[in-house]
């Protein structure tokens, strides 16, 4: 993965995080919720998941509940 692509993904994930609104059945954004939303919104050709976020993303993304 190129650094440019990595930063693009991080930016998209951060956008999902910023736009998250708590729901009754989802009171907080978890790593599962983050990746699930990412897959629905974008093409996840690299199949990134929670471990990729922990390794590559800054806070608060890497601090999401796994």
């Amino acid at each position, binding site marked *: 993965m190129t650094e440019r692509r990595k930063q693009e993904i991080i930016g998209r994930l951060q956008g999902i995080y910023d736009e998250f609104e708590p729901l009754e*059945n*989802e*009171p907080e954004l*978890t*790593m*599962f*919720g*983050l*990746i*699930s939303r990412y*897959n629905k919104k974008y093409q*996840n050709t690299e*199949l*990134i*998941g*929670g*471990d990729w*976020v*922990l390794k590559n993303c800054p806070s608060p993304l890497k601090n999401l*509940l*796994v």
Partner: protein
Amino acid sequence: MRMKRHLDTEIIYDKNGKPIPQYLDVNDKSGGTDGTMKPITGDNGAQNIQLTGSRVELETVINAQSVVAGGRAEKTITTAGESELWFLTTIDQQPWTLTAGNPWYSNAGWGSSSLFPNRDMVSKTTTMQVPNISLYMPMSPAASVGFTAPTTIQEARAFPLSPPRTLEVGVRNRSEETAVVTLRVLRIWRLK
């Protein structure tokens, strides 16, 4: 003025003149009207102590893994003498299947008969708040190995539950879309 009351019984001493660990048996009046002092003993002279309760740990073993259509997220886990293992599956596509190995076939390709309830071709997605939960049964009771598969949790628990030292567990995405899978294991040690 505060009055002292002396118990009508006798303390038991060791050869050095020091009181030993003892208790008052109020129902045995042979030692006095207040009861009889008796030594506290256990195996090898130690006190019998029984721990009760349980210890519970929840661990994420598959962390929001993206799984292509038809693919499988899998993990080999190591156990530490647990009394029971429960698997909590969270997945955003369906159908899906949860599988696990057993003591004689540790690969998750063994299938779903090691789990109760059986989670083969489940047609419902799940969430972190409300995951799908199954008890791990190392004996994999099913007709294929000469058992009648359990139909209740009580029947499932009637089979020995101590898991093997390692086993592989997997979640297969049987949908036509990429799925996200989080798998957690609830480890329970029951102290007797």
